[in-house]
């Protein structure tokens, strides 16, 4: 497992966490490069099926991050998102996805150091969970290996 590098899909809100990632870069803060960022206008835009789709296509982890409650650019987007997160987080764990795979955080655009810390934590937890084998779509097996 030592050479396993997790692939993580990160959904960042445009106004806060995406800005924090920007600031972390500009500030030369060092964080692991294991996540691919999808920029959303707001965490309220996040449909739960995006998260499941990411896992389904083989992501080892998913990280969702946005503005602190009360700081939403659209006033209440993250309040609505929070209720969806509560249900989704509960459901994903209840059906047996390892708790270390799905992460949520609130990081404002000024919190570059928090971004760095959380990024490290997320990557380490997903790394500890190992490759995602149970909650993904299987590769289509056409039986070509036997023919070749």
């Amino acid at each position, binding site marked *: 497992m030592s050479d396993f590098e997790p692939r993580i899909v990160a959904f960042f809100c445009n106004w806060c966490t995406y800005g924090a990632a920007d600031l972390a870069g500009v500030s030369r803060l060092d964080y692991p490069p294991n996540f691919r960022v999808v920029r959303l206008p707001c965490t309220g835009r996040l449909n739960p*099926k995006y998260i499941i789709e990411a896992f389904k296509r083989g992501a080892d982890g998913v990280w969702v991050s946005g503005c602190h409650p009360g700081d939403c650019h659209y006033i209440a987007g993250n309040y609505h998102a929070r209720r969806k997160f509560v249900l989704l987080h*509960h*459901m994903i764990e*209840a059906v047996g996805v390892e*708790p270390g795979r799905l992460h949520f955080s609130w990081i404002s655009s000024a919190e570059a150091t928090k971004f760095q810390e959380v990024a490290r934590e997320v990557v380490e937890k997903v790394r500890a969970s190992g490759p995602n084998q149970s909650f993904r779509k299987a590769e289509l097996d056409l039986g070509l290996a036997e023919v070749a």
Partner: protein
Amino acid sequence: MTSLADLNQNIQTAARRALADGRAEVVFGYRQGTAPFTAAPHFARTPEDCGQFVWTSFARVNLAAYLPKYPGKVALIARGCEARSAVGQVVESQFPRENLYVIGVGCQGMVDPEAVLAREKRPIREVTEDLTTINLAGDGWTASLPKAEVLRRNCKTCVCRTPKDLADEMLGGDAPPLPADDFADLKALAAKPPQEKMAYFKGLVKDCLRCYACRQACPLCYCPVCFVDETRPQWLGKSNDAMDTFTFHLLRAFHCAGRCTSCGACEAACPMDIKLREFNRLLEEEVQKDWQFVPGASWDQKPPLTTYRPDDEADFIK
């Protein structure tokens, strides 16, 4: 209420009255099915049509599912779960309250044909019912079973057997209340390791054909285009892939979160006898715990996912 015949009589009279008073131009209810263990939805527009209404323990669909497609005034002969689903339709602006007249009926629960067949192995020729018993007849024998012993799974934990608070008019006596679902099995499962939980839930849906009968039967599934039918992007493949099937069940349950009234129409419609409600119950438990919300209990309370409180708790968020 003394007998089923009286109750049927009362239902027919109430239906005729609703049509005559102009409170409804159509009455939704059930008529006898053509085979044992069945009942058919019945839509009466004239006093003569009303003569076919019966009270049945074999209702499979939820009549509230027909509301969003109907453009006129409707009287609904409703069990508790149907009344709650109708409230849900009104709260979600799918049907106007002023066009709806709810004729509530105290309900002893729906009967699961599989449970009856498990108890009675002899070939059954005829099935009739009284208020609290199911009467079976075969070649040269008769038997009767109490309904309470062969209820559908969802009916065993029904919290609204007598929809007094929701109905505009009540028929039939009060059905004695039952203990609510305590989710004990799900709590026990939650303590198990992830692999076991995954195996359990994947095992539940391993027979799923993805015929989407559950979606068609569900009173909540009124979206013009369902996510399973979307093609760009395509969320679910068309083949019988296990992960696609699992995703369907997770997202179906998520869409029903805070709205499901446990009417059991999905399970009754399933040709493979999948325990679909296990996924719904996962979220039902969470909705009750976090937001103390019971779907379809009041005409003016918003579903929990369309609203929020600034102090909602979510301690897993970093």
